[in-house]
């Protein structure tokens, strides 16, 4: 079974600085998708960025970028020019690209990293 591990329960960053959140995963599959979701205090889950495993190029979305290391099974999120509104829980998630008929489209989440942004 696939697992997702976020080893940093909490992180802190100064406003306008850069922070990197870590995520590792375990899978025997070669084709899958990886996601970072943001959960602010409102509880709303918001997709930040996604990566297809077959793509070597790292995904970027404005101030958010990932460092995808497929061989190392690592998928870190870098937030540049951190803003107060970035303060939230961040969840890394994995989804298989293969439908085993058991949990089609299922997202497997890590436990999350709580990010604080200091003014």
């Amino acid at each position, binding site marked *: 079974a696939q697992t997702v591990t976020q080893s940093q329960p909490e992180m802190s960053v100064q406003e306008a600085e850069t922070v990197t959140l870590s995520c590792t995963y375990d899978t025997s599959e070669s084709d899958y*998708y990886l996601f970072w979701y943001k959960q602010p205090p409102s*509880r*709303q889950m918001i997709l930040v960025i996604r990566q297809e495993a077959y793509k070597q190029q790292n995904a970027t979305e404005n101030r958010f970028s990932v460092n995808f290391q497929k061989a190392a099974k690592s998928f870190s999120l870098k937030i540049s020019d951190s803003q107060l509104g970035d303060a939230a829980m961040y969840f890394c998630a994995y*989804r298989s690209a293969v439908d085993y008929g058991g*949990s*089609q*489209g299922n997202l497997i*989440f890590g*436990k999350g990293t709580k990010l604080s942004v200091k003014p």
Partner: protein
Amino acid sequence: NAGVTQTPKFRILKIGQSMTLQCTQDMNHNYMYWYRQDPGMGLKLIYYSVGAGITDKGEVPNGYNVSRSTTEDFPLRLELAAPSQTSVYFCASSYASGNYEQYFGPGTRLTVT
């Protein structure tokens, strides 16, 4: 578009009571999901549906039931509530599987005492 809506936002149940959590999406998505989030944990899949009339179990289905009679609605039924079902429940939908984004509702905080 309202997206994914859930009702109620909060609910307190007594042990043994039953209730239905409502979920509606207006994006004409085929796929819908129910997750639960326990304190300090990520989300875990309870049930999912790939279309009207089709549902299947996820990772933690015990104590829950679902139905999908329309594309828009995917209610989650709790029978004989137990303290272990105290959690935040999220409904989500997506156009398809694979790389398609799952859109989440705002969640329902349920306490069973």
